[in-house]
């Protein structure tokens, strides 16, 4: 048992840190740290830097142009990149569709789409959730009816993150409405967003952000070669996608970056004539979450080590999802509380691209309340924390 990294792992971490020091533009890390919204170009710029270094697809095999990093290396990369306030990698093509195509796509599909994903030729988005489905993803009502060499798609998807930038969408569609169980009769379809009949409407969230969208399909004609795998077997591919990449589920990097940010704010804010960080109650709350994070980071490493050893993840990933969410949401809460009265101004323009507005109070204040509100989503999406609790106990009880 040895919690420390091997010399090779430490060397890799140093390499990551050097890369971040040299290649992460301050303009971008400032935006991330201040909670400002990133533009499409911001994401693409960061992708390009990673691509240059060969780290844009750390989990892809080398055969497909990936870095094929080990689980520990991926963990290190993830943690360092997030702690440095780098933008996140847009996951839809790289971490979601890519692995599905590698496992279930035809060789033509692999040859066509994978290089384009890696090269950012296409911006992908996700068409899983539908209105009213919530955590019950199998209740797909968007239909695809085969007509000759085409499917005709009708229906609606929702919670499509960054769909406003997308060139393509991967969708779960119902191809057999007569199937016995909701999980049957679903297919996995790739759809060009420029096809006639598609409309994207932004959803304004309670924090004022417009990152998620509804996507409407009316008589959208999709060539049959855009079907991934077999017709009516889509649920298998969907589940693979959902369970495939879970080492990052704890969000240790996000939490560490958030805690570092909170500490800076608490050291700056004054309360009763001294820094807020020295107020015993606030210090206690910060210490509490730090202690939880120290433990969770190790829980996460234990799961990474299991993955490295080829063990299938058990209920641990559900545990990490819940605890990771709780910690990040607590940090968001404390950050909102830390900024005091300056949590009340609600000037979303301050969070927008290239904003030149006069700030209100300290620069870090503008994002505190919106991020608190926005990150309520963490415990809702990706299988709500209630769903995760069910999974854990089901495994433990084996009832």
């Amino acid at each position: 048992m040895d919690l420390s990294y091997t010399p090779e792992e430490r060397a890799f971490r140093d390499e990551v840190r050097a890369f971040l020091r040299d290649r992460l533009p301050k303009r971008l890390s400032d935006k991330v740290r201040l909670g400002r919204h990133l533009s499409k170009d911001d994401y693409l710029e960061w992708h390009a830097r990673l691509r240059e270094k060969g780290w844009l697809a750390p989990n892809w095999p080398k055969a497909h142009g990936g870095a094929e990093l080990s689980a520990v290396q991926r963990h290190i990369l993830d943690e360092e990149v997030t702690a440095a306030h780098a933008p996140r990698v847009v996951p839809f093509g790289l971490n979601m569709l890519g692995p599905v195509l590698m496992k279930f796509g035809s060789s033509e599909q692999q040859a066509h789409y994978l290089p384009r994903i890696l090269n950012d030729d296409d911006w992908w988005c996700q068409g899983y959730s539908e209105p009213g489905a919530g955590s019950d993803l199998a209740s797909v009502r968007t239909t695809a009816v085969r007509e000759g060499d085409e499917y005709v798609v009708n229906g609606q998807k929702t919670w499509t993150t960054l769909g406003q930038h997308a060139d393509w969408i991967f969708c779960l569609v119902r191809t057999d409405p007569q199937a016995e169980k909701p999980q049957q009769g679903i297919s996995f379809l790739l759809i060009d967003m420029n096809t006639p009949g598609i409309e994207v409407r932004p959803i304004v969230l309670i924090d004022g952000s417009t990152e998620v969208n509804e996507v409407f399909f009316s008589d959208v004609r999709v060539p049959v070669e855009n079907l991934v795998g077999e017709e009516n077997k889509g649920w298998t591919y969907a589940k693979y996608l959902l369970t495939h990449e879970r080492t990052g589920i704890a969000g240790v990097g996000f939490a560490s970056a958030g805690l570092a940010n909170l500490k800076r704010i608490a050291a700056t804010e004054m309360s009763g004539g001294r820094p807020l960080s020295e107020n015993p109650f606030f210090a206690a709350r910060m210490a509490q979450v730090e202690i939880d994070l120290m433990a969770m980071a190790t829980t996460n490493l234990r799961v990474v080590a299991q993955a490295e050893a080829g063990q299938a993840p058990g209920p641990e990933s559900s545990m990490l999802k819940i605890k990771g969410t709780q910690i990040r949401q607590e940090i968001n809460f404390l950050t909102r509380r830390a900024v005091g009265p300056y949590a009340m101004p609600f000037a979303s323009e301050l969070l927008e691209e290239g904003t030149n507005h006069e700030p209100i109070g300290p620069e870090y204040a503008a994002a505190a309340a919106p991020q608190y509100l926005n990150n309520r989503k963490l415990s809702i999406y990706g299988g709500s924390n209630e769903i995760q609790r069910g999974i854990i106990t089901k495994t433990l009880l084996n009832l």
Partner: protein
Amino acid sequence: MDFTMSDERRMLADSLRRTIERQYGPEARAKADDTGSDPAVWAALAELGVLGALFTEEQGGFGGAGPDIATVFEELGRAAVAEPVTEALLAGGILADCGKSDAVEQLIAGDMHLCLAQTEPGNRYDLTTVSTQATESGGAWALTGHKSVVVNAPAANLIVVTARVAGDVGDRDGIGLFTVAANAKGLAMRPYPMIGGGRGAEVTLDATPAERIGPDDTAAPILERHVARAILAQCAEAVGMMDAIRDMTLDYLRTRKQFGRPIGSFQALQHRMADMAIEIEQARSAVLNLAGHVDEEPALRDRHASAAKQLIGRAARLVVEDSVQLHGGIGMTAEYGLGHLVRRLMAVDHRFGDTDHHLERFIALRIGAEAG
């Protein structure tokens, strides 16, 4: 012991509720975000007697006691009315105590907007840390300083300002009260919408002419008294909002189906709903306690003010977070009605002191009470 509401208050509450249900909607809320107040709504509130209920007969109103404040704000909270009624109570109450009856009369008639400029960058929730400077020259006062997050400043005709006439930044003595006209020389604003609705501003004063009001020594006791009343208003409003959120959530649990059954039939969600309901009843009781003691002597009043604000801060956090969670994705969208309520309820923790601030004060007051 009598927990029933007086007939007058019940009638006011009923007519207020009916009026709001009829008149108040997204447009009025948008108006408040744009300009600080919807004139039609404000006139209706004055007409109904909502503003008069906040002042005693002596002051030209017909209420002014703790339960009057609680009644009005609970109703306003239920519909997340974003009009600056707390500002009317707070700044209006100070003006009334300082004998500015003309302004109070205009306020009650609905012809006036007020605000209190007290917070400064760095003083957080502390009422007696004041660095804005007041200087006198030939009987005329002028103010220089930065007042932050001044709620309703953009719409206010008259701004009540705290400024230092003597002593050091943190001294309890030497705090003066002033009024400044909205169009006064040297006054600048950086206005913005507030996260809970309505508008606020950063207000900078540069040798701005002001009229001094209030006592000669220090305004701290007046400030503290009216902030305690404003805390009552915020707490009662929070209870109204929590009631509304609970009802919305119950409705959702009843009607929304998942995995083929109403989500309200899932026991884990039921139990969380029960916990939420319990905390809301606790919050209601804390408001009753404060309403019954808001005109008592300062230590007792503030003990209840801190107890209420502390408990309601906790309850509000639970209600905000669990109501969104129980709703799932739909609860995150601005379009669905929950968002307004949630944001406004969340903001309560950022005015007049958060739960930690009031826990600290409650402990200090208790130690005082037990030593005394």
